[in-house]
């Protein structure tokens, strides 16, 4: 589904990603872990097509297409979804209205019929139950005045509505209390299938207790320095990131 080859990317003159290789197949859950500043969020942003991040070399194919040929919205239509670390607020635009616009745009480009108000509301209500989203939340302006937890739940709620092939969760667990974490994890687990894939970008292991990854990658200084299974995440949690640093720096010296 996703093939990242020797990806290098920078912001301004600063190179952040320094040769990433990653392959994600349908039905898989990958966790990308790493200390602050290792390039986790940059990777997520490059995948989604954020302009400030300049790709200097390497390639990414997504479902057979060169990802760099696609605009951010074309990536979304094709099934790429990013749950933002910091979801933005859009005053005056109700969450319902925003979601309906998004869903119908995506549906249209996937060759599906647009949903009328009634069918959309039906779909929305079903997913609201799953993510424990309150009606008053969807009536409010998008993300405006939402608590941290509400914003993150709203991201996964959008994921549910947009039915992506590849979902990237960028630090979705940060700022969540344990109850909210469970709701988010349940939602994600419910959406997981053999047809889609999930990349979880996180600093901590705790979300991975609820969403069990097939692969764990450690990102350090713009490179994936270690890959393994879920046990690697536990090891990281126990030992911190210092031993990775030592190991990597040891190697490079």
């Amino acid at each position: 589904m996703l093939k990242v080859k020797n990806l290098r990317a920078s912001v301004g003159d600063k190179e952040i990603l320094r040769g990433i290789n990653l392959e994600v197949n349908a039905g898989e859950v990958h966790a990308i872990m790493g200390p602050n500043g290792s390039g986790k969020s940059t990777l997520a942003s490059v995948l989604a097509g954020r302009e400030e991040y300049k790709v200097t070399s390497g390639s990414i194919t997504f479902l057979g297409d060169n990802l760099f040929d696609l605009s951010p919205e074309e990536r979304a239509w094709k099934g790429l979804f990013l749950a933002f670390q910091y979801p933005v607020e859009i005053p005056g635009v109700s969450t319902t209205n925003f979601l309906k616009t998004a869903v119908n745009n995506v549906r249209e480009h996937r060759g599906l019929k647009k949903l009328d108000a009634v069918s959309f509301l039906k779909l929305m209500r079903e997913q609201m139950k799953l993510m424990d989203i309150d009606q008053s939340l969807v009536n409010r302006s998008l993300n405006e005045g939402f608590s941290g937890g509400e914003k993150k739940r709203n991201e996964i709620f959008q994921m549910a509505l947009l039915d992506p092939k590849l979902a990237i969760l960028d630090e979705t667990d940060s700022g969540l209390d344990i109850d909210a974490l469970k709701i988010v994890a349940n939602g994600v687990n419910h959406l997981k299938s053999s047809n889609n894939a999930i990349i979880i970008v996180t600093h901590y292991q705790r979300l991975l207790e609820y969403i069990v990854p097939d692969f764990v990658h450690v990102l350090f200084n713009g490179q994936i320095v270690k890959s393994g299974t879920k046990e690697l995440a536990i090891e990281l949690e126990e030992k911190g990131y210092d031993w990775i640093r030592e190991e990597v720096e040891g190697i490079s010296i």
Partner: protein
Amino acid sequence: MSKEEQLLKEFTSMEYEHGWSVDIEADSAPMGLNEDIVRFISAKKNEPDWLLEWRLKAYRHWLTIEEPKWPNVTYPKINYQDIIYYSAPKQKVKPENLDEIDPELIETFNKLGINIEEQKRLTGVTSVAVDAVIDSVSVATTFKDTLAELGIIFCSFSEAVHEHPELVKKYLGSVVPMTDNYFATLNSAVFSDGSFAYIPKGVHCPMELSTYFRINAANTGQFERTLLVVDEGAYVSYLEGCTAPARDENQLHAAVVEIYVAKNAECKYSTVQNWYPGNKDGIGGVYNFVTKRGICAGDNSKISWTQVETGSAITWKYPSCILKGDNSIGEFYSVAVTNNYQQADTGTKMIHIGKNTKSRIVSKGVSAGKSQNSYRGLVRINKRAENARNFSQCDSLLMGDQCGAHTFPYIEVHNKSAQVEHEATTSKIGEDQLFYCNQRGISTEDAVALIVNGYAKEVLKQLPMEFAVEAQKLLALTLEGSIG
């Protein structure tokens, strides 16, 4: 919601939609302005002497005054001798009913999406009575008979002069005096037609009254005059829309709207202004120099202005409220959008005279392209206006880095019990907002329309349903191509 999307889709690929013109034979005055032209217009309308005298007085005063220089707009000097001051589509002397109207005219209004044939509607659905003004004359007024049963007068201004001279004489110039300002004075001299409405005591007007203005003929100025009188305890909601063909020369539009609201009465006045804004390089477009003012003459009366300004090369207008009656309320809700080389200097005046008077100003400016957008507003609390209240909210939204947003609030308080609040914000459509929308599959163009409509929501929701839809379309259309 589905409407919104459909509109966005429909309109994101279009330029100014109403840029066409129709070949309608017109009966025009010679170009230029002098006393004879004023007499010509008056004679065409078969006006009584008092009105001709009134016009001449205005014209003579106009000769002694100068164009205002204070607005934050620039344009080449207008040659007032290069304008045709009267142009009427040639047709039967006076249509007795709608069937006698020139089909070309009906076609013109159909193109605008305005049905000037009376439609039978399902009971319970409000309909809109329309007065259609093309170039200098009113060509049709619908639902007159239905309204007449309630004692409501809704007709063209010219007709009102003949049929209801006592009302016209009493209220004409009572809110906007003939000597008020350069453009209002010019209008007083050469106004050609417009709409007149009178809502009698205690009558709640059951339908929206609406005037659609259309400049069709070339080199023609449009100088219409609207006079609304809402008698004690009455209510009316009035809509005004306007369009013009795309022409390379600038066209002058100098209108006057006067509203008189008596005790316990209320008038809601909504405008969707979509005059031709000029092309992308700033060639052509309408100069929209308009004076609109209402007086809350009686106690507990209310005037509410809502405007959506998307058109015109230059907009210069300040719909105002004189709050004379005790406990009277004035409101001004505005969205002004400028793109390319458009310039807008618009706002309101709230003059508090009576006790416990309240005013509310919500102004939302959106500037894009190389345009300049200014809010200019005056809140004046007079000496005897005990416990007056004002709240003003002035927001500006910038798109791109070549446009300008300006705010000129004037606050004059002469009574210590007054409470005046002013809030202002300036923001830019954020890259992060656009990216967020893109990531959810919404194109940049649609995202801009969505964000701007959200930003302007507080104003848009004041509009009657029919207009709200049109206004949303216009916002999307006006800002098309402004990012990216």
